[in-house]
């Protein structure tokens, strides 16, 4: 088992947002979490990545055999968890190259590995740049500063490619992207998939799932997973809207 979330409850300040999430992900799987706005999708992603604004009030998360909630955000990353941000942050004065080099080597240090030498790093970077259809000029610019929405999301997946996580959480990676950008992003993720890693796609729409086909789809509503199914569930949601889920849940 790669990720096991058991009865996870979390919120922000006094407000309870996640009201008992249960989810299990095996290596090699792609899971999607869908749900209406405000259902708790991004909260789940944030809690897993270790964002401090959120309080965990109950439950447990085991990642790769470790108690995830006990780890700092950087240790979670080094253990192999990756969050693709819904809104990647602009960092003035820090080039993407310098940033990703620091990140790769810090993760290696955590794992007791030597830092990558310049040649090996450059080779790896060139490979991943090609994968995401990015150029050197873009990586020399300040991280995400002045990037278009599509460039920012491509940069997220580029970072994922460089860090080679065991579990990648894609938080609304498709939001605001045109179809070409979605194709590049999804194509990148697909090429990074293997039997040893897994992907958790968080999305409001079915569109991304045309390219990134999930094994399992969960519907999150009001802080709980209320329905789990196969990829056909996404089509049903797209067709009927989230109201059918809401009605189903509310009638229980």
């Amino acid at each position, binding site marked *: 088992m790669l990720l096991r979330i058991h009865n996870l409850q979390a919120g922000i300040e006094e407000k309870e947002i996640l009201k008992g999430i249960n989810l299990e992900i095996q290596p090699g799987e792609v899971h999607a979490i869908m749900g209406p706005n405000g259902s708790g999708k991004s909260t789940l992603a944030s809690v897993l990545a270790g964002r401090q604004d959120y309080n965990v009030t109950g439950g447990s998360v085991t990642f790769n055999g470790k108690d995830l909630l006990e780890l*700092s955000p*950087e240790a979670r*990353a080094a253990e192999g968890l990756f969050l693709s*941000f819904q809104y*990647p942050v602009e960092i003035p004065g*820090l080039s993407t190259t310098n*940033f990703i080099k620091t*990140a790769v080597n810090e993760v290696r240090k955590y794992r007791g590995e030597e830092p990558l030498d310049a040649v090996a790093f450059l080779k790896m970077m060139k490979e991943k740049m090609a994968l995401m259809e990015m150029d050197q000029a873009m990586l020399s610019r*300040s991280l995400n500063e002045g990037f278009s929405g599509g460039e920012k999301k491509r940069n997220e997946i580029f970072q994922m490619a460089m*860090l080679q996580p065991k579990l990648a959480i894609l938080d609304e990676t498709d939001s605001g992207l045109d179809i070409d950008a979605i194709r590049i992003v999804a194509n990148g993720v697909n090429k990074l998939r293997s039997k040893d890693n897994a992907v958790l796609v968080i999305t409001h729409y079915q569109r991304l799932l045309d390219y990134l086909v999930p094994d399992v789809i969960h519907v999150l509503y009001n802080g709980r997973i209320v329905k789990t199914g196969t990829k056909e569930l996404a089509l049903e949601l797209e067709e009927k809207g989230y109201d059918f889920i809401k009605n189903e849940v509310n009638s229980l």
Partner: protein
Amino acid sequence: MNQTDYLKARFEQLQQEEPGGNLAAVRSKAFSAFERMGIPTVRNEEWKYTRISGLFNKEYTLAADIAALSSNDLTTYQLPAHEEANVLVFVNGIFAEQHSVIRSAGISIQLLELAAKNEYAPIVAAHFDHSSSYVNDGINALNTALLHGGIFVHVAKNKVIEHPVYIYHISDARNTPVLAQPRSLVYLSENTQLQLAETYITIGGSGSFTNQVMEVVVEKDAQLSYYKIQNDSADASQVNTTHIRQTGTSVVNVVTISLNGGIVRNNLHAVMEASHAEAHLYGLYFQQGNSHIDNHTVVDNVVPHCQSNELYKGILDNNATGVFNGKIFVRKDAQKTNAFQSNKNVLLSDAASVNTKPQLEIYADDVKCSHGCTVGSLDEEGLFYLQSRGIPYKAAIALLLQGFAMDILEKIRLEPIRAYVTELIAQRLTAESI
């Protein structure tokens, strides 16, 4: 005995040693001004947030025993690429010829006292002490009143000075506290280029106070780059006045880096007296402990079509305090002025503080002026973003702050100096215990 009686004794001694000449009269007038105005207090609006009266509670050594310093003593403090640079050394504010080297053709250096009497006398007469009409206070007058061992730097017409001029200010405080009052007048003739890098070093533990006045004249088609590095010890304070007159259409680029010191007050003036002159004033301050940094800038647009650009960025930690005051004057005739100003601050502790104030006085009606200031803490979202990629908290803070400082560091176009300052900041960030 009055706390400043020894200053008067010094003044009288200097007048006796170097009687006559133009400068004796200048000193005399300045000493009267000093006596009249005294050391500025916080009641003076220009000194509202910077209290220097306490610095005058002790008696300082005003003279210099230059022979007491060996060349070896100075080697420790050399800036990178020192071997190729033109070097000017001041000891306790007094020019030390035996430690100084001029390598480039086209620059000549001499004591101000001499320049006031020889062929440069008209230049000295026209420009010396021009700063006092912009900082009309006792501390500026004191520098002029006790003028001794100051220098005149002349760059001959059409000369591009390839190698920079490094200016070292050494305060020898091994036995007694030192009041150093370096004074310089730098003249860039028509169509010249000059790069200056200046640094301050206090040796010994008795403390120092540097009251510097640097006046620069930049003629037509001349370019000046001026890098000031303030990284002296915590018991070294300074009032640093840099007064630049752009008498011709010229380009001036000044970067002031303030990393340590007790109380540091900088007055930086760009007086733009020729159309299409350009002035770029940049500053980076990163202070810890109980340090106080005050940057007062003046950009004076006297004629039409001048352009100025000001960006000051600051990081304040522990109990450090900062002040930024940016005056921009646009005189009645200075139509089509383009003047921009920005001051950005990051506070790393609850006890750190900054007072920032833009001050625009615009008397022309067709100008573009903008100003802005920000004060905030570190960007939490940025911090989390870096951590989420495996970068530990402390390293993430260092990267964010380095990024914050980057657009100022990039303005240092003298590569060894930029590398040196970048490294100083990196070391500070590694040691930082936030």
